């Protein structure tokens, strides 16, 4: 790519061009700096501050009380300064059962969600990738759930799965129940500690299978038809073509799609908030929810920051492992080919 900045420094007598170079330097800073400033201020700086706060015993209520005692309107020491440095938060992390349960819930969401969404997305993409009448229509319908607000998806989940008010599903279940002689047949989608996390994954999957579907479909449509023709000449059936050609070619895009969804699932909170509110007990509470509960309900900013760093560590470990594994898979794939 040839840009004006590629030009080597010019002899000083050529005034017009060296002025242009100088302009370009200003110009190029002007273009990138707003982004860099916004990200430094609103992303990097809070990230570091959060790390700092996680090593303090910063409590909002304590800050307010201190302000009242001092008679100042604005709480002094408000910014997390003037609090004692402590390792307590991270010691508490090790023994906090609540944290361990919420971390486990988050990991369940990530791994189960990604698996379900990838499997269905792949199947549906293969389905729509065939040539049949109505292909475009079905494609459009299949991506509808993705366009809904997650809070709305949560409410839809309740409308579908809850027993009261009676839903189509509960009616179906009781019909089946009567038929098999068990009139009280019922699945406690939201009230059973074993079922509830699965229900969360189902609702999230309903919304995000379309994401996998769209990406994988785009990947499939980019595969040239000649490859399949060659395979058919060799006598490969549809099944063999799919696993021998389509799946390996889709591997890079699959891994990226899985990584993106996995990282998004670490952030899952809205659906849980409107369906179970974290319950029964804390059986569906994700880490993100524990963070904001600790911060908002208990005002314990220090510990909330520490938990949020545990979340960050999990995210980093997940993506690092994932990238390492996917690199290995891709390399072995190339080796086979």
């Amino acid at each position, binding site marked *: 790519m040839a840009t004006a900045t590629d030009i080597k420094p010019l002899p000083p007598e050529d005034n017009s061009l060296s002025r242009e170079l100088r302009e370009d330097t200003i110009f190029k800073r002007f273009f990138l700096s707003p982004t860099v400033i916004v990200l430094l201020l609103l992303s990097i700086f809070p990230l570091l501050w959060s790390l700092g706060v996680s090593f303090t015993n910063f409590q909002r209520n304590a800050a307010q009380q201190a302000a009242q005692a001092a008679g100042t309107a604005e709480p002094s020491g408000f910014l997390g300064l003037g609090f004692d440095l402590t390792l307590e938060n991270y010691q508490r992390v090790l023994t906090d059962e609540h944290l361990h349960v919420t971390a486990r819930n988050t990991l369940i969401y990530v791994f189960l969600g990604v698996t379900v969404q990838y499997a269905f997305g792949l199947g549906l993409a293969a389905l729509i990738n065939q040539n*049949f009448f109505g292909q475009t229509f079905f494609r459009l319908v299949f991506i509808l759930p993705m366009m809904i607000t997650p809070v*709305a998806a949560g409410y839809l989940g309740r409308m579908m799965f809850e027993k009261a008010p009676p839903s*189509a599903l509960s009616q179906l279940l009781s019909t089946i129940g009567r038929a098999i002689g068990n009139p009280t047949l019922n699945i406690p989608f939201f009230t059973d500690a074993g079922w509830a996390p699965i229900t969360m994954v189902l609702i999230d999957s309903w919304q995000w299978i379309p994401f996998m579907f769209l990406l994988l479909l785009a990947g499939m449509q980019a595969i040239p038809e000649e490859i399949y023709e060659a395979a058919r000449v060799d006598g490969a059936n549809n099944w063999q073509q799919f696993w021998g050609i389509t799946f390996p070619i889709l591997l890079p895009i699959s891994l990226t799609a899985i990584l993106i969804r996995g990282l998004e699932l670490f952030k899952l909170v809205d659906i849980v908030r409107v369906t179970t509110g974290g319950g029964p007990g804390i059986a569906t509470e994700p880490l993100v929810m524990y963070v904001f509960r600790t911060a908002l309900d208990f005002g314990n900013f220090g510990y909330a920051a520490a938990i949020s760093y545990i979340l960050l560590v999990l995210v980093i470990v997940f*993506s690092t492992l994932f990238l390492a594994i996917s690199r290995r898979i891709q390399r072995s794939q190339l080796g086979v080919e």
Partner: protein
Amino acid sequence: MKKYSLTGRIATYAIAIFWAFICIFPLYWLFTTSFKPPLAVSRVPTYFPYIGATEDMPVIINGSFFRPTLDHWNFLFGEQQEQTLRHLRNSVIAAVFSTITSTIIGAMAGYGLSRFRYYWARLGWKNDNIAFWIISQRFLPPATIVVPFIIFYGALGLIDTHFGLILAYTSFNLPFAVWIMRDFFNTLPIDLEESARVDGATRWQAFARIVIPLSTPGLVTVALFSFVFSWNEYLFSLMLTNYNALTMPVYIAGQNNTRGVEWWYIAALTMVMVAPVMFIGLFLQRYITRGLVAGALKS
């Protein structure tokens, strides 16, 4: 193209129709619930509006039909109008302004990263490192930075202001905007700008008059994603607003706690929230695919 047997074809349609049903039915349920009289929600599941129903008919007809009513919509835009419109307006303000700022700033950075060579000597970073650093911010869990946001917004008086929310959403949307726009500008031939420059246009004129008009598809993709993200965002609106700037998702999620769940009312409210995004999405769906594919393939 491939040929399929009749049974294969039937199976294809069966699965496609089944999955289409799973996608559409909850949306249909939401839509109809907003027109159902409360009894038709809480007694038995009712499936279809009875067209031609009159006022003196019972609300549940024949077990699965209901007499449609506009009561909830009238309530929403009558008695509750002030509340509904306020939260709707908050959502529109937060989404529109954060979309504008992140699209403009993002397009500038994308252009810079595509056309110039940067070198941050202290870090030893070149264009690719900078781009990767920017996109990596998108995957940072927002919960990790929420505590400092509460602390600093509290100190600066930004809690519960539109400006505060717009600022936060801009920073969330920016990485994606930069990524997509850089990608887009990379595919745009540089010759056009250069010939304009030869004709005496300044760098800025070349950017504003040649590059920007040509990059409408990229800008639409970025704007669409930014708008939808800000429109749907929940966590930061929950943490940083409480009344004046409270957006629709938090408002609707809050309906959870009031005396019993009034499903018919929530359904109408949810319709108001999802309809704009859904229409935008359906009309601009080719941009969605492009945005997703560009976002995924290149990262």
